[in-house]
């Protein structure tokens, strides 16, 4: 019984790993192909099955007309994502703490309604917000700037931060804050000295979600910029001409996922320590 269970478990883990890894391996292989290698059917191993070409990778680091140089977009993306995530995380954590510890009431609006208001911001399909955001940023002169994107991304990311952190704070006993206040802390002191240091796991998870959704947003980065401020996902589609460059997109997919994969390693550390305890609940 136990043995069968173990075998089944590992088969399942291996099968899923294969499923997870396969697209990356395919992308890795494809990133070294050219049009000829692509059009001659499914080929997997360079040299053996096709003549490798580095044009996919080169096209991502070419300044000039024949490719894009993703270094600047990479830095832009990092700036926008990190700034917006940091602001969202700070504001979202504060709000989530307030909502999890205090009762708010304004007319018929209660805590649960405020929480829902935050989360409901994720429901709206982004497409329809493109034009209003465009007009708004235009008014404040923030079109095609890092600032403008940060503003919009905060609206996208704040709800995520609030959602994760409300769940997280819900798992931290209220008595801990009370204890801190009994021991002489102000409400802010209790939050900063006691709750925050114990929320690292939640912050890591919330931060990770912010980074994921910020880093990978294509739509707003695309609609709200012109020629000066280019983010990473927008840069890559510059190569998506009549013929989709399988090779460049594959190379890009691998490059783009790397910084976040490092975040995954960080998150895993918290998971194995068990200190994500109730990151969500």
């Amino acid at each position, binding site marked *: 019984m136990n043995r069968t*269970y173990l075998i089944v478990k590992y088969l*399942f*883990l291996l099968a899923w*790993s294969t499923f*997870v890894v*396969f*697209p990356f391996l*395919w992308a890795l292989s*494809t990133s070294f192909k050219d049009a000829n290698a692509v059009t001659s*059917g*499914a080929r*997997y191993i360079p040299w053996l099955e096709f003549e490798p070409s580095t044009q996919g990778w080169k096209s991502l680091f070419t300044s000039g007309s024949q490719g894009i140089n993703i270094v600047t977009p990479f830095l832009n993306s990092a700036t926008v994502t990190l700034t917006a995530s940091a602001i969202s995380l700070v*504001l979202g954590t*504060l709000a989530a703490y307030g*909502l999890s510890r*205090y009762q708010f009431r304004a007319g018929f609006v209660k805590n649960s309604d405020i929480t829902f208001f*935050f989360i409901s911001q*994720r*429901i*709206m*399909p982004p*497409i*329809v917000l*493109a*034009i209003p955001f465009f007009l*708004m940023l235009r008014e404040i002169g923030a079109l095609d700037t890092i600032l403008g994107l940060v503003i*919009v991304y*905060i*609206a996208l990311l*704040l*709800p995520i931060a609030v*959602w994760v952190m409300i*769940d997280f704070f819900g798992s931290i006993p209220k008595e801990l804050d009370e204890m801190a206040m009994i021991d002489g802390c102000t*409400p802010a002191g209790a939050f900063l000295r006691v709750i925050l240091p114990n929320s690292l*796991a939640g912050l890591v998870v919330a931060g990770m979600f912010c980074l994921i959704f910020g*880093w*990978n947003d294509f739509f707003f980065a695309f609609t709200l910029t012109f020629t000066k401020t280019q983010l*990473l996902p927008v840069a*890559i589609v510059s190569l*998506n001409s009549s013929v989709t460059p*399988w090779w460049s*997109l*594959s190379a890009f*997919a691998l490059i*783009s*996922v790397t910084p*976040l*994969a490092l975040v*995954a*390693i960080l*998150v*895993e550390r918290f*998971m*194995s320590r*068990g200190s*994500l*305890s109730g*990151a*969500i*609940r």
Partner: protein
Amino acid sequence: MLQPKHFFLLPALLTLLAIIIFPLLFTVRVSFSSWDVYQAGLDYIGARNYLRVFQDTRFWESLLRLSVMSAISVSLQYTLGFALALAVWKQTKGGRLFRVLFLVPMMTTPVVMSVIWRTMFHESLGPVNDLLSVFGIAPVPWLSSAAGAFASVIIVEVWQWTPFMFLLLLAGLVSLPREPYLAAAIDGAGPWRTFWQVTFPLMAPISIGALVIRLIEASKIMDTVYVLTSGGPGTATETPSYYIYIRGLRDFQVGYSAALSITYLVLMIVSLTIISKLLMRFLIGKDS
């Protein structure tokens, strides 16, 4: 009067309001206008756009399709995510590697990853049919048959977002109290019964949160559809978000797409409220 509690909530609330209030009100206003590709402006045409939404079978069909699609894909994500979380929860050889690996798909850029998947599903140049042929399976019309396209979209969604469920559920599992398990062990419950009588009920609150959030996100599915199938074949994979995109930014019927969006928003809020109530009753057995 401002109390300490307000200093926690208000910065975020006011920031979000400041950013979102204009777009939101503007969208509502636009939905009552005839803003279109030839005339940009806020005239007032009453509820004409909404009447059109009401008669737009393509929209309602896409909603129906979406509910089937997201129900299948989110429940697959949940089941698989739960199974994976259970599998690496206890001491597992290579557990850390698995955990990192399982997280990575959700970190990929959907707009790019969908292209990679499209190349994989390519019926004559892609590896999926090529590998299937090794097992003697005839080429599957992944993107050119209604069922295949539907399945492809779901496969990509499951690939990308099962990690989300996995992470949330694993975090939940790790923080479960130990006592109920001791009690179950004393009762002599087997692993199957322990799961259903202890683990699953204890995980219910996390499950509901994760399911609702995934439903919200999954319902916005758009990049995947655009890249993989363009909503086709026919309209077999057209979702409301993609349809709104077509109407709004391809056709540039700004007023009409705003009306579609507001309708969508209201329907989503209503159905998510109902769904979470039902989940509560089903999984926890209580209301609210």
